[in-house]
């Protein structure tokens, strides 16, 4: 049975689907042969690859020595994945590699590019070894290409995922830093906002503020927009909604430091001024808030006298 299926499988364009185990065995055998060949040519093939990476101006953020060192380990991991068919080790390596090179500014197209270059370099070497025998070449490529594609895919996906993870982490950190909700007195919160407010940040800001009101049992919030140059209509609307939502949760919001542009946007969207208390600057806002809370700030010497 094995021999019969084997010879059939060789003639098929898409052998894997029906030929089953026999084909897999053939592939494994072929891959082993092929890996042996590529391992033998390790030195020159690696150099050829490194040369083409530099020629394509990939990894310019790294020195040539660094490229050569990475090239060696990627090459060995690549062969390992080809040989065993298991991509787990390669996945781990790809993650580790990505973690190291992402902070250096290596881009996705470079990573995809270098893996495709390796695929190309190795395929060329297979061409020159098996090229004379067309049947043998087809068989070898049938075995090599799916494996090589899978590896390229694994590395690229690993890189992109790592990149996305880092970006998400950074975004979260930045967002949390960018909208601190500060309790300055009992029942009084200050929310100083600095920089551009995009819709995502606006949403985060609202959630943090509303939660902050509950946690701190705040009655008054001073939202200071001195550091915000302008907002678009959507964000302006969102700010008004935040003020209303804070009211529903039980806190009054005093908005301070509105730049002329923001004032204009708010007027353009037709804000209901009855629903929004505004004071010129942060200091005035805090004074107003203290008044609302029943505080009276007096210089020390006056109380002593």
């Amino acid at each position, binding site marked *: 049975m094995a021999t019969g299926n084997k010879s059939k499988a060789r003639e098929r364009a898409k052998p894997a689907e029906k030929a089953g185990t026999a084909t897999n065995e053939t592939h494994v055998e072929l891959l082993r042969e092929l890996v042996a060949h590529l391992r033998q040519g390790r030195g020159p093939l690696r150099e050829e690859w490194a040369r083409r990476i530099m020629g394509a101006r990939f990894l310019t953020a790294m020195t040539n020595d660094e490229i050569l060192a990475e090239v060696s380990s990627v090459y060995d991991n690549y062969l390992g994945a080809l040989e065993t068919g298991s991509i787990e080790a390669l996945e781990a390596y790809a993650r580790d590699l990505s973690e190291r090179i992402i902070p250096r500014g290596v881009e996705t197209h470079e990573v995809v590019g270098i893996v495709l270059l390796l695929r190309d370099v190795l395929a060329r070497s297979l061409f020159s070894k098996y090229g004379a025998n067309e049947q043998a070449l087809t068989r070898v490529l049938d075995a090599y290409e799916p494996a090589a594609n899978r590896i390229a895919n694994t590395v690229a996906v690993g890189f992109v995922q790592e990149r996305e993870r880092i970006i998400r982490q950074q975004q979260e950190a930045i967002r949390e830093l960018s909208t601190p909700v500060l309790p300055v007195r009992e029942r009084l919160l200050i929310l100083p906002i600095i920089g551009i407010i995009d819709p995502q940040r606006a949403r985060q800001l*609202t*959630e943090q503020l*509303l*939660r902050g*009101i*509950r946690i701190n*049992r705040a*009655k008054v919030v001073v939202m200071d927009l001195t550091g915000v140059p302008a907002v678009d209509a959507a964000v302006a609307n969102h700010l008004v*909604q*935040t003020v*209303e*939502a*804070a*009211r*529903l*949760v*039980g*806190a009054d919001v005093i908005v301070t430091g509105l730049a002329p542009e923001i004032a204009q946007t708010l007027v353009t969207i037709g804000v209901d001024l009855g629903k929004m208390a505004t004071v010129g600057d942060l200091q005035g806002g805090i004074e107003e808030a203290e008044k609302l809370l029943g505080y009276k700030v007096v210089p020390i010497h006056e109380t002593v006298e």
Partner: protein
Amino acid sequence: MDVPVLKQRDYLIASVQAVLTDRDLVVLRDRLVEQVGYYRSIGVILDVTGLDVMDSFSVRTLRDMAHMIRLRGADTVIVGIQPEVAFSMVQLGLSLEGVPTALDLEEGLAYFDNRPKRNHTRLR
């Protein structure tokens, strides 16, 4: 789902601790509007901590309730609106239109204690 209504000094306190259907909410509204006269209360504190959602129907019903209670001579403060619920309300453009709100029961009571006494005639 029956909402317990408590009489505390001059106030009625109703505490919604679980999700209410439209019908439950209407029953609660009618009960409070009735009892505010029966107990001669001057204020109603409605704690909606347990409400999972405030949609157009619940907002409308609560607003109507507050207005009806006002017509019967008392005031209403709604407390315990959850942050997510509050923001969904404003995003959907739903407003309690002037019905006062506070953080929780304690703040609701403080609202009544701190406000200046009203001196117009009541409907009792």
